[in-house]
């Protein structure tokens, strides 16, 4: 485990949480993230397309829209990678969502991610350590309420052998 990288990730997440704070009356209240990144490093073959798996976990009791929500008004989950990196992004494959029935009214069904989900990112990296950097955009709800759209920093060390 790369302790330095974990420190960077924690720092990035910490900074993000600070940036997302809102004011409720006179007291600052931090947004809850509801999603965490479980992967922080990978080793792949350098110089050719390789798949890096980004593992995320949605907090228990919550769901986020899948990458392809059935309602165009809903905000899809998607990663926006930083451009200009030595890590070349070839493709991104998002998992299918699962049906979640809202527990009110006739029970409208939405397409969501719950628990752990994985995004397969096809990359080409040079030899040595590179950093894959991006932001996961998502919008979370629980059974009864929804939270504003949020961004989760995605930072992963990819080492090309």
């Amino acid at each position: 485990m790369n302790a330095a990288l974990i420190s960077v990730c924690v720092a990035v997440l910490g900074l993000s949480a600070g940036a997302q704070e809102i004011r409720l009356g006179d007291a600052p209240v931090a947004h809850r993230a509801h999603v965490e990144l479980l992967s922080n490093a990978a080793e792949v073959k350098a110089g050719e397309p390789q798949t890096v798996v980004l593992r995320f976990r949605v907090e228990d009791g919550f769901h986020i829209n899948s990458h392809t929500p059935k309602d165009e008004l809903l905000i899809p989950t998607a990663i926006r990678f930083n451009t200009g990196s030595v890590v070349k992004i070839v493709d991104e494959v998002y998992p299918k969502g699962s049906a979640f029935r809202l527990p009110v009214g006739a029970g409208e069904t939405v397409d969501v991610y719950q628990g752990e989900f994985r995004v397969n990112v096809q990359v080409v990296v040079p030899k040595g350590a590179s950093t894959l950097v991006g932001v996961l955009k998502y919008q979370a709800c629980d059974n009864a309420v929804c939270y504003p759209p949020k961004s989760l920093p995605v930072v992963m060390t990819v080492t090309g052998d």
Partner: protein
Amino acid sequence: MVMQKQQDVQLTQTSSAADPNADPAAKLLLGKTAPSFTLVDLNGKKVSLADYKGHAVVLNFWATYCGPCKLEMPWFQDLQNKYKGQGLVVLGLDEDDGMAVKEVATASKRVGVTYPILMPDDAVAKNYQLSDYIPETFYVDKSGKIVEQTIGAHSKDELEADVQKAIASGGL
């Protein structure tokens, strides 16, 4: 294709699911006079809460990305139609951040509501002590007092009971 060796890390602690009813901000305004506001509707027309003095008013905070909100809104429209003769007014207050008025109008049309949709400002969110989640609804009686405050989607029967409470209260 060769899969890489992966290293995983847990960056944050697990926390329990939200319980809107347990939120300390819930129902802080119950029994108090509804904070005044003047906002613009989707047509750019100014709308003040004071315009509806003597009416029961439902203030429903919603957003286009909120599924539970869009379930409730047609019910509010039905209740607006049903209780219009008894002076009920429903106002939808959009909580999208930075969304164009045109997009909000398209969304509200798709949901099927014709009651006024207002574009709030930060002052309204502060004065109503909104949490960071929606929907949140305030039921204001004819005297301007908040007689019910709810967070999250509720059944149509529950909405109607709260509407009836607002209509029955505060008569002059």
